[in-house]
């Protein structure tokens, strides 16, 4: 007999890796250490440095400002977990703003909201189809969509803002529920919904599997295309919600709305510990990433730091936060 290898009934052997608490939990804990600490550090710093930072009014401010970015980041997180990328969100927000504002002006807020959501889903669907069926790399596909949606938004709006949005809709942006701004509640609900979807549905688990190892997922019979398309549609819907929030805030349909959101949302997601290579990270981290970016910018404004200096400080703070996170995580 040729195969006299030695081994043992492993059931009886204590395994070094199964000792202590499960690896999943410990890794997640560590992974979620650094950024929350960075967030707490800047909150403490700003509280000491500015006397208006730690007020209810300012927190409502920050919450309101962070709402749209959070919404976009939730969708972006789905796509990035899949090892894809959605750069189109920036102008998807603009296109949705224009279309829903026109629909609202013509047929009222509910129709406008529906039109916005539909547009978002359609953009996501096209992105997903282009990436899966035409096998165009996500970067190019969504950059192309960024350009297409921008052109379309400008064409439809003829380059100028759309006015005539019902005041009742615009007022929603300023509504508070139990003292909390409504847009923030919507965004928070979206984060929770995103979390639940990613962790407790088969779609969510498939997204992690496809992002973590596409080949393994495919060989195990998971439909990679369907999973990717679903993630893009989620991203489109989230962009629609963000767009509606922003449209209500500025009170007009804007063909240039949210241009910086493509990169910002990716940054927030990556900052939250989600790997651009897919399959790793959690939406809880993303919320912290959005919080970090938003509070940083709010705090610097409260300290009345000049714009140019702010740019430098924001850059340095991003590096410092992630470096601290990494130092805490891999203490090899």
């Amino acid at each position, binding site marked *: 007999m040729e195969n006299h290898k*030695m081994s043992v009934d492993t059931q009886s052997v204590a395994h070094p890796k199964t000792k202590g608490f499960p690896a999943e939990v410990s890794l997640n804990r560590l992974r979620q250490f650094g950024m929350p600490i960075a967030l707490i550090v800047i909150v403490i710093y700003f509280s000491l440095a500015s006397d208006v930072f730690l007020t209810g009014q300012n927190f409502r401010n920050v919450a309101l400002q962070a709402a749209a970015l959070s919404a976009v980041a939730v969708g972006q997180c789905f796509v990035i977990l899949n090892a894809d990328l959605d750069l189109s969100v920036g102008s998807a927000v603009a296109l949705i703003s224009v279309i829903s504002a026109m629909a609202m002006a013509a047929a009222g807020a509910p129709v406008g909201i529906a039109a916005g959501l539909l547009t978002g889903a359609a953009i996501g669907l096209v992105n997903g189809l282009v990436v899966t069926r035409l096998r165009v790399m996500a970067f190019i596909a969504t950059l192309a969509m960024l350009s297409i949606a921008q052109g379309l938004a400008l064409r439809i709006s003829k380059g100028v803002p759309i006015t005539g949005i019902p005041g009742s809709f615009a007022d929603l942006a300023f509504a508070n529920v139990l003292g909390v701004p409504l847009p923030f509640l919507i965004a928070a609900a979206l984060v929770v919904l995103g979390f639940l979807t990613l962790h407790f549905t088969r*779609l969510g688990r498939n997204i992690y599997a496809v992002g973590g190892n596409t080949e393994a997922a495919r060989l195990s019979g998971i439909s990679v295309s369907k999973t990717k398309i679903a993630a893009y549609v989620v991203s489109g819907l989230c962009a629609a919600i963000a767009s509606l929030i922003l449209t209500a805030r500025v009170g007009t349909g804007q063909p240039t709305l949210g241009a910086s959101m493509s990169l910002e949302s990716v940054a927030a997601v990556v900052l939250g510990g989600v790997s651009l290579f897919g399959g790793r990270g959690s939406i809880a981290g993303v919320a912290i990433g959005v919080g970090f970016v938003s509070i940083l910018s709010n705090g610097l404004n409260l300290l009345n730091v000049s714009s140019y200096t702010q740019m430098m400080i924001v850059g340095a703070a991003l590096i410092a936060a992630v470096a601290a996170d990494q130092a805490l995580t891999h203490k090899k």
Partner: protein
Amino acid sequence: MTDEPASPDDVVVQVRELSKVYPGVTALSNVEFDLRRGEIHALIGENGAGKSSLIRILSGDSRPSAGVLRVNGKLEHFSSPQDARRAGIVTVFQELSIVPALTVAENVVLGNQPATDLLGRIYSRRLARERTRSVFQTLGVSIDPDCRAETLSTGEMQLVEIARALLLDAPVLILDEPTASLSDSEAARLLDIMVRLRNAGKSLIFVSHRLGEALKVADRITVLRNGERVETRERHQVADTSELIQMMVGGRLERLFPTPNTNIGGVLFSAEGLTRRGKFEDISFAIRSGEILGFSGLVGAGRTEVMRSIIGADPLDAGRIVKHGVHFRVRDPRHAIETGIAYLSEDRKGAGLVLSLSGYENIVLSAMPRMFRSGYVNWTRVRAVASEIAQRMRFRGQLGSMTSTYSGGNQQKIAIGKCILSGADLLIFDEPTRGVDIGAKAEIYQLLHEAAEAGAAVVVVSSELPELMNIAHRILVMSAGRITGSFARSEFDEKTLLAAAFAGHAGANDKAPESLAA
């Protein structure tokens, strides 16, 4: 030869005139193959013979260039593994397909996640865990379903994949080298399960380079050579492994193991008190020039971890290393190569090869600084040097194409070639013959022997005890992160070695599994 057609309703999977052509490579030509209901059909052949290519077509992972495939008499054109699954064919592929960041349980239910609601949308962690536990129990493994798959050793990952396939309870189960990284008891258990499934009426295709396994469980055996079917025989028509080997390679036979080198020099390298907390403790050994030192132990004993720390890939908490009388700390793998220590990883896909580069480049990867001091890369020289090594390794394929297109065994040969070419005089080989055909094994043993003869010190980590007993001058046994035995060639004895392997597991049931008692 039993080539007369079986009665049609007996045949579950039928393949006729199947060919597969890759650019410049004919992986399969005109292959005929039948899988009967309730049989275990072994598929054997050298590395690159086309076994995995056939399996990939049967399981919907790739499409044939020509030929037909029938499942239960129905013509099928699979366009994805999903299609094959729907037709009742489930496969454990040769290359590991594990999602590292997910838990073990999630990997086991991958593509088949249990749901709690009627629509099947809500994922049930509890059910996933339960199912994982129960299938693990059948397999006799004790991996925690909640730990991350990336922390598993290669063998454990293999078990997870097998569990995934078993869970589906499909009428046709295909296993491509499932035992390559398993230890004996796990392999034996798997073979038992296969027999049980066969007896329950399932059909199985089984690939292995361990010909003994094929002879043990198969009802029929098909031999492939160079993409063609040599023949299919009933088990009782095959006398022994040597007959199979003859069918596989179609030529003359020679010895598998070389006579050990007798020209042993002074101590070349020694490790003193190496410790990495939680992984291994107080590992000390010395190796002389010209010597082959075997490392034996159970799966997860910590051998790989020791070797990785020696080359600076992982940190050490304590201990030191002495080479040629100089003691130093290895900073990183580059430093290790510079000081003449080369390492062959047990995980060729993850840590051994750059699959997107050609074979040429992988072979010279570690030797580049030595070969091209100026920084300018001379491709003519790369090709010449790499071709020479590949020829010595009996590599079959095109060195110029991407390594990802090579058969598993051929990839292994490239990885070994890289270590040999690095010019190191301490060679550490972790499972060097995993997934390698028997002809190539002989070749690898010969290479190790030659390297030792030329004055190198060679460390071989292997889970195959007979292999170590035949090629090593000495064997160290590790158990639960410690060295529990050291044996000179004259003391080699399976029982003693096994006892040492169990020594570190106090409180465990200390007797060797029955499968090894015989």
